[in-house]
Structures are given as structure tokens and as C-alpha cells.
């Protein structure tokens, strides 16, 4: 039995007065795609940051391939897990190519100089998100959707084993949402990678994820396969709003009453 890429045991964490999770147990194995759903303010983003080692936890342990978070140097951890953030980039000028190239930082030597391989990977990542031709554009002049795709490209260049994505479909048009999520799933669920993403759109989560983590916002949670959790009953409980479920073209589709 292969050990999980990300193993969370008895995790408790909070932000301010919000209990995000009490005694959370989670095993993210290679090839799996997890979706995190929950109402506004439930702490989905903070949980994602905690899993990435960017937010303190109150109790429990987070291990990547069996090794606790504290056992990693910052650079080695950045090769293990990568994050896609929801917040905007800072206000300094830089081109799309330069921004995507920052994803290679965990692999740079002590001189910090990018090698041809790093340049190649950044160029490939830009191509994969469909921004080829915009390499030399000032990143600040991109549209919201293009900027989101640039950030996805940065994560692709980083090539972490576990990708922690916060709202990857933000700012993307409906077609691009499907294209990007499909591409991310292909790239991060091979034999040695996994994907964990916070999503607002339950239909996207049902379509792309194998497992769901439902965060209620009071420390309660449910984790399990999409089949077991994507039901009208569970999602009505989660959002405190009546939901009905229909099947269209073989996919479960939600309708909020």
C-alpha cells in the first residue's frame, strides 16, 4: 500500500473565532482529486493555507509523503506542495514570462539563476494555459481571466506533488473553467501527484472531483467520495439551503431552490 501524498491526522485549526475543523482526518493519495465545499466564511481558504504550512494549526499533524511539515526546508516544501491563491498580485511591473518563471524558484541553485530547463518549463506552462504570445506583456495589463491563467501557469511551472488550489475557476469564462480544470486534473492526478481544490461551483466539483470535503463552518465536516456526499441531503445540510439534484448527460447537476 503506497503511503498518501498528504496525510492529515486529528487536525484542529481556527481563524479568529471561527472553528474551521476539529479532529480533521484526511488522506490524499496519488491520482486523487479532492474538492472542498462550504458556505462563505467557513474557512476553506484558511484550511488550504494550513495544509500548505502557511497558517498555524492548533493540534494534529500534516504530513507530506510521511514527513511532517516541520521536517521540510522552505524550498523542499515548495517542491512538495504548491498553492494557487485567490488574492491579487502586488503592484510592481513584470512580464507574464517573468511572473511564471517565479514558479521555478524551488528548483534554483544557490546562485538563484534560472537554467535553460527552467525557461523551457515556464514557456511550456504558458502554452498549456493558452497564453502563448502574451509572454512579454506587462502582467498588470492582463484581464482577470488571463491573470488567473497566468497564476495557474506559475503553479504548473512549480510542479508540486500536491496542488492546493483556491477557487481555480475564478474570473474564467464557462468554457475556460472546463478547459483549465480538465488540464489541471490531467497534470496533477498522474501516478505521483494529487489535487485539492476549494470550489464555489458545486457542479464543477461534482464533475471533476473524486472526493469531497464538506466544511460546515463550525468545526463539523464530512469527507468521502463524491458519490456518497454529492446528494441533495448533504448539500442542503452544508449550505443550509434546500437543494435538488438532477442528472444531465450523466452528470449530477444541482439546483438551489
Amino acid at each position, binding site marked *: 500500500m503506497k503511503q498518501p501524498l498528504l496525510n492529515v491526522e486529528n487536525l484542529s485549526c481556527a481563524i479568529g473565532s471561527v472553528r474551521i475543523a476539529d479532529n480533521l482526518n484526511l488522506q490524499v493519495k496519488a491520482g486523487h482529486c479532492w474538492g472542498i465545499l462550504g458556505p462563505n466564511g467557513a474557512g476553506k481558504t484558511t484550511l488550504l*493555507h494550513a495544509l*500548505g*504550512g*502557511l497558517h498555524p494549526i492548533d493540534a494534529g499533524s500534516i504530513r507530506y509523503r510521511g514527513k511532517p511539515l516541520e521536517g521540510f*526546508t*522552505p*524550498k*523542499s*516544501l*515548495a*517542491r512538495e506542495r*504548491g*498553492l494557487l*491563491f485567490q*488574492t491579487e*498580485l*502586488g*503592484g*510592481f*511591473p*513584470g*512580464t507574464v*514570462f*517573468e*511572473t511564471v*518563471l*517565479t*514558479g521555478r*524558484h*524551488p528548483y*534554483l541553485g544557490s546562485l*538563484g539563476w*534560472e537554467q*535553460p530547463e527552467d*525557461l*523551457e518549463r*515556464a*514557456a511550456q506552462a504558458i502554452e498549456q494555459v493558452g497564453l502563448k504570445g502574451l*509572454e512579454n506583456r*506587462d502582467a498588470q*495589463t492582463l484581464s482577470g481571466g488571463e491573470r488567473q491563467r497566468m497564476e495557474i501557469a506559475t503553479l504548473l511551472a*512549480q510542479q508540486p506533488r500536491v496542488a492546493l488550489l483556491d477557487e481555480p475557476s475564478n474570473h474564467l469564462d464557462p468554457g475556460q473553467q472546463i478547459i483549465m480544470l480538465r488540464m489541471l486534473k490531467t497534470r496533477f492526478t498522474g501516478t505521483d501527484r494529487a489535487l485539492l481544490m476549494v470550489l464555489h461551483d458545486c457542479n464543477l466539483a461534482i464533475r471533476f472531483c473524486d472526493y469531497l470535503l464538506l466544511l460546515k463552518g463550525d468545526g463539523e465536516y464530512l469527507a468521502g467520495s463524491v458519490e456518497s456526499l454529492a446528494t441533495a441531503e448533504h448539500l442542503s445540510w452544508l449550505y443550509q439551503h434546500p437543494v435538488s439534484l438532477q442528472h444531465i448527460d450523466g452528470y449530477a447537476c444541482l439546483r438551489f431552490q
Partner: protein
Amino acid sequence: MPRHPLKKALPLLFLLVLLAIACLATSLMIGSASIPAADLWRLLWQDDGSVQYRIIHELRLPRTLSAFGVGGVLALAGVLMQALLRNPLADPYILGVSGGAAVAVLAAMLLGLPLIWQAPMAFGGALTSTLLLFALAHQGNWNTSRLLLTGVVLAAGWAALISFILSLSPPMQLPGMLFWLMGDLSDARYPALPLAVLAAGVLITLWLAPALNLALLGTQRAAALGVEVRHLHIILYVLASLLTAAAVSIAGAIGFIGLIAPHMLRLLAGSDHRILVPGAVLIGASLLVLADTAARTLIAPMQLPVGVLTALLGVPVFLLLLNKSYGKRT
């Protein structure tokens, strides 16, 4: 095969080196006794016992090299503070660091402390001001807009104290004090000090450059990509404070270099610190050398405060570049 993005910036760096050399030569040639370009090279290396040799070696060279060093240090301090606060408006002058140093020096003058105390007082004042700034603004995390606002308010507070000291001071002392407040390189006799500080600062900053590039993207992004953000912030803070304190204690409160030099380079070649650091240092150094040359020659035999000229040179250049880059974007 994609090209390394920094390769296209190398010609610019080369041009800036040429510009710096031209500024240094201009500064050495111009003055009450002008020295022709043809003689300059020979006089630099060869003591022919002439008055010109003594003018160059005893008067102009120390002052010019000091201006070069101080200008570079101010530009570097600006780069570091802008990276720390992730705000292109950060600058030792605007954040009140220079103001703190000025208050300390003026107080020493008012109390009649010997001249030798001025540099240490300035150093202490600058450090105290930075400590105060961070103690007031650092509440668990580095909220950049809070830091910037705190700095601006501190600067206003120092300005009030400066006015207070000036109004208490005997009229005889006022010209010296005012001159010092606007920056003054006429007493800078030991260029080795600012040049050594500059060299050390540039080396450390270049070593940090990849981490600085990520820090501009935001604390969390930098941490996610493998930067030890807490350590980086502490190093930046200490280094920026030391550099500013050194510059202010040598040449007084000279503004705008730390703001304008990095910004000019960003508009020309982007924000990558591996180009930004050497480029901004060269621009800042050249700018201060030019400003100081103008300060001692424009209304010779009287001297102007160099800070007035850095502002007079810097403000229009800054506005022009800003205007041009926004025009390009729309």
C-alpha cells in the same frame, strides 16, 4: 528555446555604467578651476605637482566619490524598503527615517555637542526612527499600508520637532542647520566609508535578489514558493535601516534618490532585483554626483544644498517617466 528575460537588460546596465563614468568625469572637471578632459586622466594617476592635481585629489575626488557612494546607498535603501513594504512609494525620506536623523543632529548642534558627535547622532536618530516605525506599525504581521501611513505620520512629527528646534536655536546656528537639513556633501572627506557600505549592501542584496523578487508577489506567495519570509523581512529591515543611517550620517537628509532611482529603472527594465539593484544604484549614484556638481557650481562661489537639487532634478524626471509609461499602456 526561450531567452533568459534578463539578457535584454544587459545593454541597459552597460549604458548605466557609461553614464556613471561620464558623471564622475564631469564632476571632476567642473568647478572654480576647470580641468580639461584631456588632462583629467593623466592628473588622476600622475602627480605633476600642479595645483590642478591637488584640486582633484584633495577636493573634488573625495567629494565626488562620497556623492557616488551616498547616492548609491540611498537608492539601495529605497529598493529594500520598497520590497519590504511592497509599495513603490516607500523611501527613507518619506518614511521619516531621515527626519529622525535630522532631529538627532539638530539637537546635538543646539546643545553645543562637538562636531564629531554629528555622524553618530544621525546614525542613532535614523535607527531610532526605523525602530519606532516598525514597533508602531508591526502588529503581528506586516500590513504595508499601515506601515507606510505610520511612516508618513512619523515624518510629519519629526518635521514639527525640527521646526521646534530651529525656532529655539540662536540665529547664528541656523544657516548650518538648514544646510544640513537639505543635505550637504561639502564635509564628506572620506569616500572609503560610503563606498564600502555600498559594496557590502549591493553584495548582500544581490544574494537576496531571487527571494526579493518573490517577496514583491506577496508574503503568502513568497512563502508558498519556498522563501523564509520572516527571516527575509528581518534582514531587509535591518539592512535598510543601517544603509539609511549610514547615508544620512555622511550627507544629511537628501530626499528623492531612494524613490526616483529604483522607479526609473523599473520603468526602463522591470522589477527583477538582479537588474534593479545594480541599475538603481548606478542611477542613484550618478544622480547625486550630478546634483552635487550643480550644487557647488551653479551659484559659485556660494553653494546650494544638494537636497534642493535632487528634488529639482528628480521630480520632473519622475513625472515625465510616469506619464510616458502610462501613456504607453492605454
